[in-house]
């Protein structure tokens, strides 16, 4: 029997009998094991839903807050070409936020609720965006390292078990590749410039390297939810696996720039077939995650201000729509 419920937004009401170990849960896991996608109105364990809501909304918030550090340089981009590409990149990030918010909404949370969670500090976003962009070279370093790390994280999510998230991610990954390339091109240009430009390039790499390495999250032994997320195919690789790939990739790419990564312990280990690297300062990571990074307060207040200043636009749009609808009704009548 066809139902008139909104095909995406309204989740199926959970059958109380469908608890862990139940038939429904077994069937669900079987689907996941067989690489079938879970769609919004399919039955799913409540914890799967909650885990996805948390992950997708955090991801959306990161895209949105991530516009701020780069937006800082749009008006000061060194040429029209650089300005146009930076605007396009930042606009893409806004789009990524929107794809992800609507993917999260299919799980039954509203947009307003998510925005509220962000503005009240209950929801987190990637800690990387709490660092300042001090020079133009930072825009290059963000594109190369931060978008590079994001791509490394996001490509496996294209095969995530939850359909709307996976599809949003396919779109996002397609768009991301230009982000990384434009960043690398900025650094490459600086690396061939004056002594001062070379120093600026190295300085930006120095400041963005470790925060980027931290973007993959805590070490595997310190991330207790990984096993469950892997079983549900929300996650395909562990934090440390992805981090290692990122380090290996950057250790090679930095040579093209004739620059260095700020890690004296970084060296290729032929027995592992990977680069070894130095210890990560997890204290810094937790400081930033818990709100005490260099720009946490600034980022959040900028978001809240933007939202408040947009209030009249939203109200005007609603009023306009109501007026148009009333006009139409009159014509019909």
């Amino acid at each position, binding site marked *: 029997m066809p139902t008139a419920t909104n095909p995406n937004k309204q989740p199926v009401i959970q059958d109380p009998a469908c608890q862990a170990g139940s038939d429904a849960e077994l069937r669900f896991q079987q689907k996941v094991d067989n690489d079938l996608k879970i769609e919004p109105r399919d*039955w799913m364990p409540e914890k799967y839903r909650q885990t996805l809501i948390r992950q997708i909304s955090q991801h959306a918030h990161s895209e949105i807050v991530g516009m701020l550090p780069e937006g800082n340089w749009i008006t000061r981009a060194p040429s029209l070409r650089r300005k146009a590409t930076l605007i396009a990149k930042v606009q893409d990030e806004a789009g990524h936020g929107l794809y992800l918010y609507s993917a999260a909404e299919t799980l039954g949370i509203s947009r307003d609720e998510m925005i509220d969670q962000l503005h009240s500090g209950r929801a987190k976003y990637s800690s990387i965006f709490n660092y300042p962009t001090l020079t133009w070279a930072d825009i290059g370093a963000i594109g190369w390292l931060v978008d590079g790390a994001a791509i490394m994280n996001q490509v496996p999510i294209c095969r995530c078990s939850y359909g709307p998230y996976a599809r949003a991610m396919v779109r996002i990954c397609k768009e991301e590749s230009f982000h990384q390339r434009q960043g690398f091109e900025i650094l490459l240009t600086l690396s061939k410039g004056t002594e001062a430009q070379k120093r600026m390039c190295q300085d930006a790499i120095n400041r963005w390297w470790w925060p980027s390495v931290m973007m993959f999250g805590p070490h595997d032994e310190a991330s207790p939810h990984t096993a469950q997320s892997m079983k549900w195919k929300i996650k395909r690789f562990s934090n440390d696996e992805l981090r290692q790939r990122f380090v290996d990739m950057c250790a090679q790419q930095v040579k093209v720039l004739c620059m260095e990564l700020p890690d004296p312990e970084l060296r290729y280990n032929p027995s592992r077939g990977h680069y070894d690297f130095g210890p990560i300062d997890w204290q810094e990571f937790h400081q930033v995650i818990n709100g005490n990074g260099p720009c946490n307060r600034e980022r959040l207040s900028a978001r809240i201000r933007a939202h408040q200043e947009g209030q009249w636009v939203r109200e005007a749009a609603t009023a306009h*729509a109501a007026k148009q609808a009333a006009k139409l009704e009159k014509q019909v009548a």
Partner: protein
Amino acid sequence: MTNQQNWPLWEVFIRSKQGLDHKHVGSLHAADAGMAMENARDVYTRRQEGVSIWVVESAHIHASNPEEAESFFDPANDKVYRHPTFYNLPDSLKNM
């Protein structure tokens, strides 16, 4: 500070090029159809992904129930003879 409460959800369908079907690409919030269309253009076709857009208010879509999919689609299960491969014909027969 709620704001989008009155902004309905719209499903967006895009024809990627002339001659192809419109395909569902995602959803967005907008106050009315005109604004939904402009939002859809900015969100889903920044790289010339489309030549035509449909927006439909999500509330107007009726969907089959996934819980009943098995019985709902059951009538087609035992009718393999609807496929050309069902018929045994000699290899010597060409172009059929």
